[in-house]
């Protein structure tokens, strides 16, 4: 089908317009609102909208300015012929006319019917007829899958017609497939799990329940079986324990009997031991007596032998004592002599010391007496000096100083006095001048020291006050006092003036100084002390002389040493002599003590010897007495020997008996028996406790074994097993059926998919060919099919990293191009029904494509045109398609 010419009248914006189409390539250009889309609509309407009618579509076609009903004429080729189609959309009076060039003509409905048969069964609704080839403005980027599905049957029919081997599922195929899908949906959830209400779900639930029941029944059965086993074990154990108890009881009885025998034997041993002991004691006593007698005899003889030397020792000791005593006496006499020599030497020393003192004192007295003579001379000079001092005025320098002070004060007071007193001179007077009591004549001068009334004549009376005040009087009085004091002092020291007083004082104090010097010398000479000393020495000398005279009546002054040095030598000699005497005395005293100690020692030795001898003698006496008593007691030697033999035999007999009894006792192993009894009792107790425990276990097991008389665990278990087996069998069956259904469903899906791929392949290949000029040589378009339906459009581009893009992931421009490619491919396939040609109208379909892409698009469109399609592009930008090589129709 190919459009040849279109004429519109009174159609929307177009009053009257005729366009002639190129057979392959057309670009209808015009600015916006020029009516380009209206032209595409007019083609669609005239092809698919019946002329008669007043629908919204009809009314929309009306011209805006009025002027008659819309009319559309279309000339086209179809079915190998040319047709002229005219439609006048006059509502109920709408007219249609279809005329085959050189053939028949059809009017109205017939025209419409023939037209429809020319266009094909799946032409579509009037408002969207041939939607795959009329790409309306604004819809170019929409997913073309929906459009493809609309023409799917036609496409498949074409593929089948062209390919021959390609098959399409039948209605029954679809129905079976749908039923399978339904059944699988009923049986399984989307996640592939069996649905709860499905046969498989129910079977599996029943199996789970049966498994649970079986588990419980098995547990109950096992519980009973376990109780039965426990009971059996407990019974066996009880038998063992009872047997063990009996054995232990027998052992205990035997052990107890043995213990009794042991006790009896022990008693026997104790008795025999006592008897043996007695026998041994008797034998021992006899033996001891014999021994004692022999011992006593031996001891006696020994003592007797020892006694003689002891007596000789006593005598020797006495002699020794005497010798020591003699030596002691001699030592004492020597010591006494030495002592006397010491006394004599001491007396000599005393005498010589007395003489030494006397000589010393005498020499001292002579020295004191010489000093005393010098003192007395000094005393006589002092007396003389005192006498001369008494003849002098006894004025001291202080007195002279005081008198000069007094004189100075008087002089100063007088000067003051004279300075303040007034002086009245009468130079001339015609009248008597009476001053106080005195009358002054001219030439008289009067001094006044006090307030004085002056009268001159009778008429003049003046009061003169010297010094302006009363101090003149005080000064006068002070002067008087001072004079009086000076005079009194001068009188006292008996001088007239201070100068005199100083001369007297010099003389007096010179004398006194000389006296004081003398007195000091006297003081230094210690006159009194010397006198006392001389006195004292004299008395001492007297006393010494008296003592000397008394001690040595013959001695006198002539025998005395010449001086103190001689006396001291004599004393030293005497001291030496006394020390020698004392040394000797000490030596002899020591010897005396040694001698006395030796005496004492000898005395003790003698005493000891005597005591020992006496003691031994007593022992000898006692031994003799004891021996006599023992013999008397135990008899003589022969009798004693006989008794000893008898006693020894008896002892041995007792010992043998006891040994035999002990052997018997040991044979019974008393220490083991002693352990055996508590051990066996413990074991019996333990077995008793074990028996109790096992009996409790038995009882418990018995309790668990008792049935309730209604339920039968064995039967329950068997039934549960049977139920489980049935449930498992049923579940297996259902699982098999479910698997079968799923498998069937899967196979159907796969086959459908395979079919779908077969019939989509030509379409896909064509679409890819259209795309490659635009998107590149590696571009492949893929159409996913689910069952009989197109589901998804994808683009693969080997030159991109991403493997595939879904349609809605593409950019707006690419979407337009992909959609256009698919439409062109569909048109090319479907064109087979229309003499190999279909018009494809793009109304501003590439508004999102960039200029470069649009240039590439022209290759796509050119390819379509070259393959027989009639491409009509409506655009407001005709320059974009300048490379298309199309007929350009400007509106």
């Amino acid at each position, binding site marked *: 089908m190919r459009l040849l010419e279109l004429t519109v009248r009174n159609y929307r914006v177009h009053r009257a317009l005729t366009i002639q189409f190129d057979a392959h390539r057309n670009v209808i250009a015009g600015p916006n609102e020029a009516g380009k889309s209206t032209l595409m609509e007019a083609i669609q309407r005239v092809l698919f909208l019946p002329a008669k009618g007043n629908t919204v579509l009809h009314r929309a076609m009306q011209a805006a300015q009025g002027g008659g009903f819309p009319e559309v004429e279309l000339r086209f080729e179809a079915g190998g012929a040319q047709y002229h189609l005219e439609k006048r959309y006059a509502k109920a009076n709408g007219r249609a006319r279809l005329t085959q060039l050189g053939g028949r003509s059809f009017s109205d409905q017939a025209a419409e019917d023939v037209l429809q048969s020319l266009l094909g069964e799946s032409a579509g609704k009037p408002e969207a007829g041939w939607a795959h080839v009329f790409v309306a403005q604004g819809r170019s980027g929409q997913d073309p899958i929906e459009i493809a599905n609309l023409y799917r049957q036609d496409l498949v029919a074409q593929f089948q017609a062209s390919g021959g081997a390609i098959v399409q*599922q039948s209605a*029954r195929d679809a129905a079976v*497939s749908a039923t399978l899908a339904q059944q699988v949906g009923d049986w399984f959830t989307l996640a592939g799990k069996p649905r709860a209400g499905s046969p498989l779900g129910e079977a599996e639930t029943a199996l789970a329940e049966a498994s649970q029941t079986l588990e419980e029944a098995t547990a109950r059965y096992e519980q009973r079986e376990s109780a039965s086993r426990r009971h*059996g074990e407990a019974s066996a154990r009880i038998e063992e324990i009872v047997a063990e108890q009996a054995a232990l009881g027998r052992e205990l009885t035997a052990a107890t009997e043995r213990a009794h025998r042991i006790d009896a034997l022990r008693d026997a041993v104790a008795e025999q031991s006592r008897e043996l002991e007695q026998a041994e004691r008797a034998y021992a006593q006899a033996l001891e007596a014999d021994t004692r007698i022999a011992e006593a005899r031996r001891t006696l003889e020994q003592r007797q032998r020892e006694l003689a030397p002891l007596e000789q020792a006593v005598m020797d000791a006495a002699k020794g004592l005497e010798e020591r005593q003699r030596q002691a006496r001699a030592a004492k006499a020597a010591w006494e002599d030495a002592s006397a020599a010491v006394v004599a030497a001491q007396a000599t020393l005393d005498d010589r010391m007395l003489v030494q003192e006397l000589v010393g004192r005498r020499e001292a007295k002579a020295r004191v007496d010489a000093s005393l003579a010098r003192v007395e001379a000094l005393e006589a000079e002092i007396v003389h000096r005192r006498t001369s001092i008494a003849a002098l005025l006894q004025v001291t320098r202080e007195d002279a100083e005081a008198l000069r002070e007094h004189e100075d004060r008087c002089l100063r007071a007088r000067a003051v006095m004279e300075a303040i007193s007034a002086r009245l001179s009468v130079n001339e007077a015609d009248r008597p001048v009476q001053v106080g009591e005195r009358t002054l004549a001219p030439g008289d001068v009067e001094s006044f020291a006090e307030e004085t009334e002056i009268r001159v004549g009778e008429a003049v009376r003046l009061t003169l006050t010297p010094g302006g005040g009363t101090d003149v009087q005080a000064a006068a009085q002070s002067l008087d006092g001072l004079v009086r004091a000076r005079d009194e002092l001068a009188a006292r020291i008996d001088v007239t003036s201070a100068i005199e007083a100083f001369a007297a004082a010099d003389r007096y104090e010179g004398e006194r100084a000389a006296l004081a010097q003398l007195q000091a010398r006297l003081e230094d000479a210690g006159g009194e002390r010397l006198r006392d000393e001389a006195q004292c020495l004299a008395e001492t000398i007297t006393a010494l002389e008296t003592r000397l005279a008394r001690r040595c009546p013959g001695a006198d002054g002539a025998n005395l040493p010449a001086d103190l040095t001689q006396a001291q030598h004599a004393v030293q000699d005497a001291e030496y002599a006394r020390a020698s005497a004392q040394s000797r005395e000490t030596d002899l005293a020591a010897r005396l003590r040694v001698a006395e100690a030796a005496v004492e020692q000898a005395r003790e030795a003698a005493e000891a010897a005597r005591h020992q001898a006496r003691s031994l003698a007593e022992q000898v006496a006692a031994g003799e007495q004891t021996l006599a008593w023992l013999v008397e007691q135990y008899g003589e030697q022969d009798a004693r020997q006989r008794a000893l033999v008898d006693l020894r035999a008896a002892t041995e007999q007792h010992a043998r008996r006891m040994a035999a009894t002990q052997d018997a006792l040991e044979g019974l192993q008393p220490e083991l028996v002693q352990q055996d009894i508590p051990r066996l009792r413990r074991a019996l107790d333990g077995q008793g406790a074990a028996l109790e425990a096992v009996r409790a276990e038995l009882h418990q097991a*018995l309790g668990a074994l008792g049935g309730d008389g209604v339920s039968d665990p*064995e039967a329950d278990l068997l039934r549960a097993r049977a139920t489980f087996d049935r449930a498992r069998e049923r579940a297996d069956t259902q699982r098999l059926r479910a698997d*079968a259904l799923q498998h069937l469903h899967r196979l159907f899906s796969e086959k459908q998919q395979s079919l779908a791929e077969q019939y989509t392949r030509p379409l896909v290949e064509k679409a890819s060919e259209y795309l490659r000029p635009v998107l590149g040589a590696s571009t492949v378009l893929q159409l996913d099919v689910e069952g009989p339906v197109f589901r998804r459009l994808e683009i693969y581009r080997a030159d991109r990293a991403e493997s595939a893009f879904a349609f809605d992931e593409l950019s707006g421009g690419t979407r337009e191009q992909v959609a256009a490619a698919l439409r062109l491919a569909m048109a090319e396939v479907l064109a087979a029904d229309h003499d190999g040609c279909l018009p494809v109208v793009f109304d501003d379909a590439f508004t999102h494509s960039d200029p470069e892409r649009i240039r590439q698009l022209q290759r796509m469109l050119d390819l379509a045109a070259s393959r027989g399609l009639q491409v009509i592009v409506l655009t407001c930008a005709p320059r974009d398609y300048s490379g298309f090589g199309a007929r350009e129709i400007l509106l």
Partner: protein
Amino acid sequence: MTEAAKTRTIFVHTADWQIGKPYARVVDPGKRALLQDARIRAIERIGQVAEDEQAAFIVVAGDLFDSSTVPSATVSKALSAIGALGRPVYVIPGNHDHGGTGGIWEQPYLRREQEALAPNLEVLLDPEPRVLESAVLLPCPLQRRHASDDPAAWLSGLDGRWQDFGDRPRIVLAHGSVQDFTAPADDEEDDLHASAPNRLRLERMPQDDIDYIALGDWHATRQVGAKAWYAGAHEQDRFPRGADYVSGQSLVVSVHRGAAPEVREVRTGAIRWHQLTHEFVGEAPIPAFEQAMEQLLGGRVDRDLLELQLSGALGFADRDRLDEQLDVWSNRLIRLKLKDTTTYAPTREEIDALARRSADPLIAQVATALLEESQSGGREGEVARHALRELYRLAS
């Protein structure tokens, strides 16, 4: 010794009544109860046999009860049936109803009911001779479920006492397996005590001093020695173990001191246990199978149990038909124990109907794939075959 004792003694030898057996594999509780009741009703038939044979007494060689925990109501029912037998019944404890502590014979309830309902029942709990007027019973009771030693060992110690028994026939009662005859491994899932059997050593028994050994434990009748017999269960309780497996019987035994016993098998069971193995082959496999089933079971309901082993291969339609039939049989039978290894083998028509389906290419393609997969073994093949059948159903 009376004159009567010198004559032959006739008694009925039974064993393994296993009253209270749960029949857990039977799904339907009513059918389960039916089987349980059958074991009690069989006691009545034993009584009839004893009456017919004028038996001096009846012995039960162990396992009178199925377990130590049989419900009291069942105990009462069983004792009542025993009480109605009208002659002495001597029983030894077996492995299911051992005589030890916790065993059923110790239960006060049982003892009371025994006194009240079955005074003719005597439980021989101890291994010691029970001297009767007409015989001497030598019981070998099991004191516990699994005896560690030979329960009959005590017989060897009777050396000095045999003459005390005079001419009375000596009858050993024992329960367990014997050395030269061990029960084949019992795969019956309804027995908790099947493993670890109690071993009896018949060869050690003083053969000359014994006249008959009444054995229990093996549930089919079987002679295991000149004088030794298993009576088998009085009412069959499991599927046969082979062609010679005859159960549901009791033995009428005639003994005489020093002579070989005379033993006669008498049927006392009512329930039939069948085994059928069928392989589906040929063009019309279902009718042949239906015929075989009809032949075996007729129109009986609630009288039979069947262990059915199916093999071979079936087309989808035949399989559906078989399933319908199996549903019917499982209702009619007390139990249908099915071992079905039949595989799907769609017919040529069925294959064509799926794989050569030109109008429905998808179905055809899937079917073709599945047909190929179904040739493989294991789970994959099994799933494919089932899927094919599902597809067949959906596409039909």
